[in-house]
């Protein structure tokens, strides 16, 4: 899932204080699970903004709403008319949601209420860890299911650097050395020799270094087109 963290309240206030009618707009998927920007968090943030506005003597209407997902158009449909009546949308969706709405909303600003941080998991309640870098060229079959791109501070592909200290990364003694984990895991799997081969320089263009990425699933698009055509024919 996508993991984020609410921006500091003061930073949010600086962003919104000049607007008269603000909608705090939550997303009930990933960012709700990480307690950053779901409907509940949007509601709390709304209360805080109302209080702050009252304290500062700022005339501001703040409301909140939430939808299931900010990354697919149909979830917005029932609410878009209402959303367009505000002069600022403070989105607590991830950055994907902010972009997606900004592309569609017209001349109304959409500001981010959270910092979108990483693709991660929840090993225990309230604790989130980054486990995938979305590099577009997965090598987890070579590394025991442990990602060297994002779990190694240097994204090394050929084994640990000299900074491993008691299994921890040189960056912080609270961070596991990914290559220590990889070596131990490969030993357990009996496939350590997979690590002996030199991995050549990577093609990073599959990641964020090749410009914005798109994936087109042709058979789905063809199917959708066909459905539309059929619907049109039936309608006639």
């Amino acid at each position: 899932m996508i993991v984020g963290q609410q921006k500091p309240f003061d930073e949010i206030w600086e962003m919104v204080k000049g607007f008269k009618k603000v909608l705090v707009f939550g997303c009930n998927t990933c960012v709700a699970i990480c307690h950053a920007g779901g409907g509940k968090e949007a509601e709390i943030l709304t209360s805080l903004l109302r209080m702050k506005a009252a304290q500062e003597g700022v005339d501001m209407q703040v409301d909140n709403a939430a939808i299931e997902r900010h990354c697919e158009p149909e979830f917005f449909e029932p609410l878009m008319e209402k959303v367009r009546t505000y002069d600022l949308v403070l989105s607590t969706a991830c950055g994907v949601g902010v972009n997606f709405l900004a592309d569609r909303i017209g001349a109304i600003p959409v500001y981010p209420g959270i910092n979108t941080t990483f693709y991660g998991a929840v090993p225990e309640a309230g604790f989130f860890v980054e486990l995938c870098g979305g590099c577009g060229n997965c090598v987890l079959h070579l590394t025991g299911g442990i990602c060297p791109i994002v779990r190694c501070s240097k994204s090394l592909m050929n084994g640990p650097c000299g900074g491993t200290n008691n299994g921890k990364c040189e960056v912080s003694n609270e961070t596991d050395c990914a290559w220590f984990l990889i070596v131990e895991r490969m030993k357990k799997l009996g496939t350590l020799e997979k690590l002996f081969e030199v991995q050549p320089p990577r093609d990073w263009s599959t990641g964020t270094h090749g410009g914005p990425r798109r994936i087109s699933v042709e058979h789905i698009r063809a199917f959708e087109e066909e459905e539309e055509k059929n619907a049109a024919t039936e309608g006639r």
Partner: protein
Amino acid sequence: MKSGSNLERVIASGKMAVTAELGPPMSADPHEVIKKANILKGFCDAANITDCQTAVVRISSIAAAVIALREGLEPVMQMTCRDRNRIAMQADFLGAAALGIKNCLCIAGDHQMFSAAGKLKGHPGAKNVYDVDTCQLVGIMKKMRDEGLQQGGDKLEVAPKFFVGASWTPMGDPMDFRPYNLKKKVDAGADFIQTQGIYDMELFKAQMEKARNLGLLERTAMLAGIIVPKSAMMLKYMDSSVAGVTVPKSLIERMNKAKATAGDDKKKARELQEQEGIKITVELIQQALEIPGVKGVHIQAIEWETAMEPIVKAAGLYPRPTFPDA
């Protein structure tokens, strides 16, 4: 000869090689490099020019290497994977070769967080690169030299001829993987290896045995790293905080004893510890050179370049070999 560098010639001659270290300053003044180069000259076959060590901004490795070369000290230009992508690295290889540099050591580099670990502000918010890692960088240099090709496949009119090095932390964990880590660097094309500082020679010997069994020591020249200890405090710090370094208690005891002999006289305590540090270094060098497969030593007298002369002389490694047509 792959590069014709002095270091390569010494190693090829079968004599034990000696490399040193020269850390460039946080300054645009070349005199610090010139001064250090002249202190080291004659007491090593080549000196590593560090590449913004601990991620702190200093005179670039390539520029300091050229300054050293002008002073008559052969440089080993270090290049970290932290600050450059493959385009910048290969451009620098061409430039360095055009400027007469013949040795290069490929390393991952300290993470940028290190730059603010001490008293400096550093640049902990810098973006790192790590487009390629050490093994890949070694492979790129080899491909440029031996095939006249860039990593991407484009031809080079004149190939840069480098003697290619890599570092090795034999006692870093996971320790049982470290010999394979070395193997990958050798497979990628490392002509020589300089190790992390070694104080525990028994442990190093055991790791070397594994490297020998993998057939690596005939394929690369192993230079054992020795960091010259300056004080008991430094040894304790290295033992507790530096990754891949363990210091036997007996060595710390020796330094403590040297310090204690001086009583309250701080100046004398420093001098006695420095003397003991040089003695320890000479012993470590002699022990290292006896290990089968060791082809030389990489002596790091960090910010204490004047220690090189007494060390190299006492270790019986002086004078350094010279070659008539070099």
